[in-house]
């Protein structure tokens, strides 16, 4: 396998595998928020804010993978 195709494979794998975990995490977070909302519809505001915060935390991990992928793709 020549270096160029190895690089392309690495970029794809970094982004794909890096998005796997945060995707699951965001799914679980959304599940929890929906359940909380169904049980207590009045707490919509705080639940939504906290859900956004937690989702941003989970999403940051995918963003690290994205930064690595961008670095691999455009810098090295």
């Amino acid at each position, binding site marked *: 396998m020549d270096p160029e195709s190895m690089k392309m494979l690495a970029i794809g794998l970094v982004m794909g595998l890096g998005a796997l975990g945060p995707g699951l995490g965001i799914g679980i977070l959304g599940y929890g928020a929906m359940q909380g909302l169904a049980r207590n519809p009045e707490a919509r505001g*705080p639940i939504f*804010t906290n859900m*956004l915060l937690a989702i*941003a935390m989970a999403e940051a991990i995918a*963003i*690290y993978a*994205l930064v690595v992928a*961008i670095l691999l793709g*455009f*810098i090295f």
Partner: protein
Amino acid sequence: MTSSKKRGCLGCSFPVLIITVIIVLGIVIVGFLSGPIGQGILERLGIHITFPSWLVSGKPAIHLAAPEIFNIFGLSITNTILAGWITAIFLVLGSWLITRRMKLVPGRLQSVFEFLLGWIYDLCESVAGKENGRKFFPVVCTIILFVGFNAWLSLVPGFGSILVNAHGSEHELLRGANTDLNTPLALAIVSFFFVAFYGLKSLGVGWLKQYFNFGPFFKSIGRMFKGKFNVMDIFSGVINAFVGGLEFLSMLIRLISFTFRLFGNMTAGEILVLVGAFLMPMAVNWIIYGFEALVGLVQALVFGILTLVFATMAVTSHETESH
């Protein structure tokens, strides 16, 4: 559609709606076919259509490092700095114009800004409590407004299409300030010092004790010289110091995570728009623009709220929590 007057859908009559849908569909289909994907499909089918050159956009050139436009006394001014200045001037001028003639019964613009600031203020109070919320509000609100307006400013059509010739090659004159790694880093450092300032102000040296917790360890060593040798004491002292070190490390990692979250989101948005314009010109960017507006707002909120949460954690000491 029970009454005969209200015929139509989405606020327009049926002929207007149908014509609009046809025009939109036509634009989308032509845009799709003129992109690389559509060209590939057409070539498979054996059809050759040459599209006008203004429709076909070139392969996107993506620069991570912001190019220098000009320099003042050796300080290089990049295009992202220019965009940051424009955002700042826009915000300062805007708030000056709005607060210049405040009325008891607000006008349109004033009520919009009162609503926005009131919403952020309520958020601060709900997270940090009444007293601390008032203290943290200025910095948090500035961060939210700067990041949010910056993200939305770079979505304005024509923002990135002004090209200037600098140092022998063409660059965009303006680029969203947070697509340069330095601006998010600067914001993260500001938020870090903000948290540290309020932590030190409200807890004094006790705030530092969370991170450099060598007290129990030295105390147990001192007790050892007095003849009371206790292995568990020394062990728990070491563990305490180690936990403090971990907290310190997590604080530094928080700095990096703040930086890369904002930088990654903004850069990814810009690259997404570029790639969308390259793959399917005029077809997908309608949706991407809406998505990017949402992302900009959410990232601004997240940056502000996380600063707020960490500041709140810093002013409430760990001792009062556990007891």
